[in-house]
């Protein structure tokens, strides 16, 4: 589904990602961990197609298409979704209206019929209820004045409505209370299917307890320095990232 080969990305002229190789197949859940500033969000943004995130070397293909050729909205219509680490506030744009415009724009791009407002409302209410998100948030402006946790839930509501093929969740667990964490995990698990995949960026084991990743990768200074099964996340939780400076992966395994 997603194939990243030797990906180098520069932001404002400075190279942040320095040769990433990663393949994600349908049905898989991958966790991406790593210290602050290692480039996790940069990878998410680069995949979603943010301006100024320039691919200087390597390639990315998604659903058989070269991502570099596509606008962000085209990537979304293909089934790529990024839950932002810091969801953006958009005063004056109604949350429900925004989500309906998004869904219908995607459907239109895929040659599907647009959804009328009644069916849409039903869909979004269900999604919101599943995440215990108050209906009133749908009537407000996108993320404006939302609490940290409400913003994260709103991201997951969008994911549930848009039903992407590949969802990248960038620290969606940060700032969530314990119940919300469980609901978000449930939301993801409900979407899990043999034709979908997830890339979950996180600092903590907690979310992974609920999601159980197939693979865990550690990103450091723009490269994936080690990958493993779900146990790798446990070891990181115990040991932190000091081993990165003290002899690399061997030190982690020895300890």
């Amino acid at each position, binding site marked *: 589904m997603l194939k990243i080969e030797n990906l180098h990305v520069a932001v404002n002229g400075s190279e942040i990602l320095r040769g990433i190789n990663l393949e994600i197949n349908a049905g898989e859940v991958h966790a991406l961990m790593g210290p602050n500033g290692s480039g996790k969000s940069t990878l998410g943004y680069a995949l*979603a*197609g*943010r*301006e100024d995130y320039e691919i200087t070397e390597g390639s990315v293909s998604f659903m058989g298409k070269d991502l570099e050729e596509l*606008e*962000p*909205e085209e*990537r*979304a*219509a293909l089934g790529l*979704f*990024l839950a*932002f680490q810091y*969801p*953006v*506030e*958009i*005063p*004056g*744009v109604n949350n429900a209206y*925004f*989500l309906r*415009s*998004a*869904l219908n*724009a*995607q459907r239109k*791009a895929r040659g599907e019929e647009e959804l009328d407002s009644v069916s849409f409302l039903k869909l979004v209410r269900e999604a919101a209820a599943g995440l215990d998100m108050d209906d009133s948030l749908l009537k407000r*402006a*996108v993320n404006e004045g939302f609490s940290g946790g409400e913003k994260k839930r709103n991201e997951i509501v*969008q994911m549930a409505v*848009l039903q992407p093929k590949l969802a990248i969740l960038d620290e969606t667990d940060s700032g969530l209370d314990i119940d919300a964490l469980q609901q978000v995990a449930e939301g993801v698990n409900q979407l899990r299917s043999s034709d979908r995949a997830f890339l979950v960026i996180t600092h903590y084991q907690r979310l992974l307890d609920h999601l159980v990743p197939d693979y865990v990768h550690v990103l450091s200074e723009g490269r994936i320095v080690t990958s493993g099964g779900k146990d790798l996340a446990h070891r990181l939780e115990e040991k932190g990232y000091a081993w990165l400076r003290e002899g690399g992966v061997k030190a982690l395994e020895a300890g």
Partner: protein
Amino acid sequence: MSALVEKLVGEETGGKAEPDWLVEARREARRALMRDGFPDARTEDWKYTSLKLLEKRSLTESEGTEREPLPDLPAGGLVLDFFNGRLQVPDDLPAGVRIYPLREAQGPKGLVGDYGGREAAFAWLNTARFEEGWVLDIQRELSEPVLLVSRTTADFSGVVHPRLTVRLAPDASAQLVEMQLGQGSGLCNWLTGIELGRDSRLDHCRLQHAGNDSLLIQRNDVTVAGGGRYNWISVDLGGRLGRHDLNIDLIEAEAGCQVDGVFVADGRAHLDHHTRIDHRVGPSYSEENFRGLLSGRSRGVFNGKIVVHKGADGSASEMNNANLLLSEHAEIDTKPELEIYADEVTAAHGATVGQLDSDALFYLQSRGIPASQARMLLKQAFARTIVEKVRPEAFRDDWLERLAGVVE
């Protein structure tokens, strides 16, 4: 005598029988115009707004075209229909409302002012030339809104000087919905006076959705007595040349006003808003929030002045002006001014000029919304936050729809 004075002021007209005070007021207006003339590039308050268009256009005296039926309005109310500058006096007036010609008033007090020098030339011009001025007296709380519709026809190429003074008695309250829908290439030179008695309240919503050729110069002088409240929301969506002067005088303690405005300028539109709020006695309150959205080759001007006079202690005042400049050929000149001569005043003001928020744009696109649609959504959103405050709701919805039609 300048060409503009010759063209616009013209000869003294002996028309209707008018009382001496009005004859004298008109003469005084002529004297002021002959003495000071019209503003030019050296007139501080007009330095960004040139009158070249007024010089270029012929602006013949207006012919009285036959009155056309009133366009459908989003909701009912007491309609004041100014057609090519002339008011159709409504037949049925609600209890507590009176409307009469200015010349029937006892004297000039509160109806004609000392407007100032050449920067006030259009107020003098209106005084010298208005055909019939009107006074609207509101004695109580009105349940239905007053709907002021000002329209000119597509073949209108002259000059008209509509004039209206609205007076609210103590404790009265009303909604005033003003719609400037001028067509044609002529000039509408409006003068409005608003007088709020003690503890009265006026919610005044103004729409300017005039044609691409229309010239509109407006001045609105407001005085607010103690405990009174004046709220003004202004939405500009059209016009070729628009100049609006809003002067609010908070003359007693506990008087307050809220000023919200947005202008959407595209093509060759030139929209100029000057607002001035005087806090004469403290504590008095004002809050102002003005936005400009400029595309094409349009030009916007915002000049917001707040003066907290000596003795207006304990007053609070806030002013904010935000602009989006969406084309390299568009231009905005913004100048918030704050003068404080009193103590214990809380005041803040600021102005920004920016582009569409690229983070927001990316967020929308990342959800599948095409860039062009995302841009349109953000532009509309910027203006919506002001238009959404408009009441009654039927007008809010109508104006939101008009906004959506203008911002593509």
